[in-house]
């Protein structure tokens, strides 16, 4: 009986101690992650932000804050790249093009064709497929003028396809070299 009481006391003490220990364990602190890089459309930061401080700031900016911070810088940069810029094949003047590009998001359709550009104006900026030649599209919009025929040596880099074929089934991207 004595042994049982002793055992029970120990167990009880351990139990109380155990409960106290549990009570003093606070819930773990929330783990946060802080933005380092961001991307919507291809090559925007690299082409339109010249100064390193702008590149760094752009990577830490969310799209809703970008227009006020970057649109006028983008416009100056566009005119530095192409001093003769008037409009492009989409009919955008410098303010309209840079206003669009300064909101660095990819527009994607959830109920139709998905492509950056396929020649059909209705499909323009409805996604970005693996085979889309986004560089030629962006060069054309920056250098091609209203008809897309200006600055012909600058509107295509003549690299029109990836070095490996894509797959028609998931995960779509080619195996590594």
């Amino acid at each position, binding site marked *: 009986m004595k042994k049982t009481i002793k055992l029970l006391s120990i167990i009880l003490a351990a139990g109380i101690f155990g409960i106290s220990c549990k009570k003093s364990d606070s819930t773990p602190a*929330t*783990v*946060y*992650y*802080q*933005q*380092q*890089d*961001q*991307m*919507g459309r*291809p*090559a925007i*930061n*690299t*082409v339109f932000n*010249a100064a*390193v401080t702008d*590149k*760094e700031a752009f*990577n*830490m*900016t*969310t*799209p*809703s804050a*970008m227009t006020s911070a970057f649109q006028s810088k983008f416009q100056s940069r566009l005119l*530095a*790249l*192409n*001093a003769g810029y008037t409009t492009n094949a989409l009919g955008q003047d410098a303010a309209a093009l840079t206003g669009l590009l300064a*909101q*660095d*998001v*990819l*527009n*994607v359709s*959830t109920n139709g064709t*998905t492509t950056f550009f396929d020649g059909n104006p209705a499909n323009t900026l409805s*996604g*970005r*497929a*693996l085979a889309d*030649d986004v560089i030629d599209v962006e060069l054309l919009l920056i250098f091609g003028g209203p008809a897309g025929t200006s600055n012909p*040596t*600058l509107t295509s*880099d*003549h*690299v029109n396809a*990836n*070095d*490996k074929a894509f797959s*028609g089934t*998931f*995960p*779509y*991207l080619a*195996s*590594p*070299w």
Partner: protein
Amino acid sequence: MKKSKLLIIAALILAICGIVYAADHADAPSVTSQSTDITDLYSFQGSDPNALVFVANTQGLLSPTATSTAKFDENTLIEINIDNNNDLIEDLVIQCKFDAASNSMKVYGPVAPSEKGTRSKLEGNVTASVGITPYGAAPLTANQNGVKVFAGPRDDPFFFDLDQFKMILAGTASGFNNPGIDHFAGTNVMSIVLEVQKSLLSSTGKINVWVETKKKI
């Protein structure tokens, strides 16, 4: 003044401003050569018309040798942001976090985030999880709760004659060559490929998508 002369002067000004990369590869010093460096984002309808594919690539210009030891980073969150109502604020996020202990990529979402903007926390429970595909192996994929996922090294799908573009900006070339040379040929990236049922995206027909990388703080 001749147009071409103006262009060359403009290019010289740009050349002084620094090196130009492309897509998003190494677009600023603090992400260059880091697991947080985004190279590309793609989004398209693949072989399933009821789903949308998202591709988020990081750690670009990996040589084959570098690829054999390349890893995702546990402290880097790769987050797809989706805006459904064109206010440029995320309504849904899909978060991808590498777990070293299980050598797998855990996917959270699509879910409405409690934290919006430049700071995030993991939202809710894991939707899908897949083992990282080893270099040289056939792709490992998982398909859980309407989300298909792959994570591992892939050939960099981006293509561009970057070197010629740099010469144009430096004023040492007046245009591109035909044919051009793909600077990214023969290089790899660390890739996450998701195929998400459209019913999970609660969309009105057009969405705005962007990708962010975030470091644990």
